[in-house]
């Protein structure tokens, strides 16, 4: 530090504006750790099953977990706020059920899909409005209530029926391939992931999301439209849930009020393993993407050698805790 006491004049200090590159800092990042786990999982899986290390298998495997991964993208924003949205599973059910019912009532499929997305948007918007207007309630409470409510409405609509019979082309969402081997859902997900990556890390919107997550009062005082941005993010989360609903419904060919139950916890696990802290303000999209594929491939690979589901759950539970434990070591810096 400069000590300019001797010359007796005020000298403005020079403040550095170039980042010093530190090899240690570069390598001890959470995302590297995730990357290592990612590689390790592929090595282990390919040792376990002769079917695993195969382009077709790997590509096909993505079809089994990418539906919820869409929500993880927007849930990342929600959790950066320090909030949480546990109503997404129910939003999927509601959006999907309404779409199916309207289609079977004669609405053309493209319009039904639009309605599905709209339902997601509205469900998310309601969450957002309630959270913003009732600041004394946390997002957990609001979305816990709407979680029960949204699924409840789905039950009222469809009771114990299933609804399906969608046109053939709708199958393509969940089951279709591009160039015969690349699952369509993978392509769609990559596009969405790029959009969300840019939105979070390159735009003023993303910057404001981080600001709110760190200190919403200071953000308000700095002219950030805190409420508006929160509503947008929750609405976006509803929209992504509706998109997940499209893929899931296509995958199942029909829908029921009880679909996607428990999805919220899977999505949250993906996001927090990715290094997004539920206390807000921290985390990067890259981490979330890695974590989506880690959990997905781990499940798929172990399932391929027919490890019981319960054991897979234990493995994922321990992985979650163990990796977060590692990340807490002082070595890993985890800045946005």
């Amino acid at each position, binding site marked *: 530090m400069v000590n300019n006491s001797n010359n007796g004049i005020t000298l403005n200090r020079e403040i550095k504006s170039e980042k010093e590159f530190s090899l240690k800092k570069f390598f001890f990042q959470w995302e590297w750790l995730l990357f290592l786990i990612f590689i390790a999982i592929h090595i282990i899986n390919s040792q376990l099953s002769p079917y695993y290390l195969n382009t077709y298998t790997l590509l096909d495997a993505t079809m089994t977990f990418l539906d919820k991964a869409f929500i993880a993208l927007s849930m990342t924003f929600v959790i950066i706020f320090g909030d949480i949205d546990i109503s997404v599973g129910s939003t999927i059910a509601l959006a999907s059920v309404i779409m199916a019912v309207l289609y079977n009532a004669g609405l053309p499929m493209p319009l039904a899909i639009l309605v599905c997305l709209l339902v997601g948007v509205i469900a998310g918007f309601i969450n957002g409005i309630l959270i913003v207007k009732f600041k004394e309630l946390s997002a957990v409470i609001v979305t*816990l209530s709407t979680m029960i409510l949204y699924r409840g409405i789905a039950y009222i609509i469809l009771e114990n029926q299933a609804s399906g019979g969608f046109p053939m082309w709708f199958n393509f969402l969940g089951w279709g391939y591009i160039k015969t081997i690349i699952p369509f859902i993978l392509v769609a997900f990559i596009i969405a992931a790029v959009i969300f990556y840019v939105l979070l890390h390159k735009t003023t919107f993303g910057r404001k999301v981080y600001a709110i997550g760190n200190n919403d009062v200071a953000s308000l005082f700095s002219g950030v439209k805190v409420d508006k941005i929160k509503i947008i993010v929750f609405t976006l989360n509803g929209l992504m849930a509706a998109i997940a609903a499209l893929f899931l419904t296509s995958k199942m060919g029909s829908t029921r009020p009880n679909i996607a139950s428990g999805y919220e916890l899977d999505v*949250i696990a993906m996001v927090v393993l990715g290094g997004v802290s539920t206390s807000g303000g921290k985390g990067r999209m890259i981490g979330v993407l890695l974590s989506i594929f880690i959990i997905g491939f781990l499940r798929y690979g172990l399932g391929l050698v027919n490890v019981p589901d*319960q*054991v897979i759950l234990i493995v994922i*539970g321990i992985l979650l805790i163990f990796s977060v434990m590692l990340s807490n070591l002082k070595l890993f810096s985890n800045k946005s």
Partner: protein
Amino acid sequence: MSEKSSKNKISLERIQQIREFSLIGFIIVLSIFVQFRNSNFLTMSNIDDLLTNTAILSILAVGMMMVIITRGIDLSIGATLALSGMVTSMTVSNYPSLHPLVALLIGIFIGLISGAIIGLLVAKFNILPIIATLGMMNVFRGITFLISGGKWVSAYQMSDSFKAISTGSILGINNLILIAIIIYLVFYYFINYTRTGRKIYAVGSSPESAKISGINVDRITWLVYSIMGGLAGLSGVLWVSKFASAQSNTASGYEMNVIAACVIGGVSIAGGEGKVTGLISGVLLYGILENALPMINVSPFWQNAIQGAVILIAVLVSALIKRRIGSSNKIRRED
């Protein structure tokens, strides 16, 4: 700061009271409505059923409240409950002459250990509660499945004395209700009249301040998860005794009910806030919903939506009331 203005102000206690009264008012209105639809609702026998069925939830809610006050959350309690219930009932089926008290102790012990592990993860390894408990939830469920080999322990494998834990009664009051009352008394005292109890609030209200003023934050954190675990363990025994069946998916998802009851009872997820008296009304409202909906003959397909709507309304209304009081408390002068 004139003396007069400060006297007009509504005190901390008043705020809480009014909140609780509003909830109790809501409960009364709801009860009258249900009573109108089914005159069996406000009979002694139904109230007895209601309380018995809410007892386990209420015991878990006490633990959950303390966890939430410290800004934490515990998603693993359903799994802990299942683990403790399974181990205890397997033990009981192997040693039918085991004294029920021993069974209770085994269950509490297993719960304590599970809770202590979580407490360790949260306090010492700084793992966020939601992650630690989400992870351990999977682990505990998996272990329960593995030790039971996918089998259930059924009624005929349990001794009568074991089943009597939850069916027996003292002075005409069912044991479950009695246990819940004792737990509420003990924890009411613990939370309000002991230093350790107050430290729980301090840690939740401002962990930094707590640390700087010499409160052992880690110890308190560890303590609340251990207590939560112990109560979940106890509930596990009560559960399998009540239903006379232990399965590896016992009480799956039950943590959400408990959290909902806490939240309705005015426990703030942001930490630092929540009272035993408020919790009782939250638990009661939840219990009434569970009990009343089947009785008023609503279509089963409507039950979910009604439950969600009632919770939402209860929470919103109490927030509005709190806001009313909060703002009048802030205004310093009335012209």
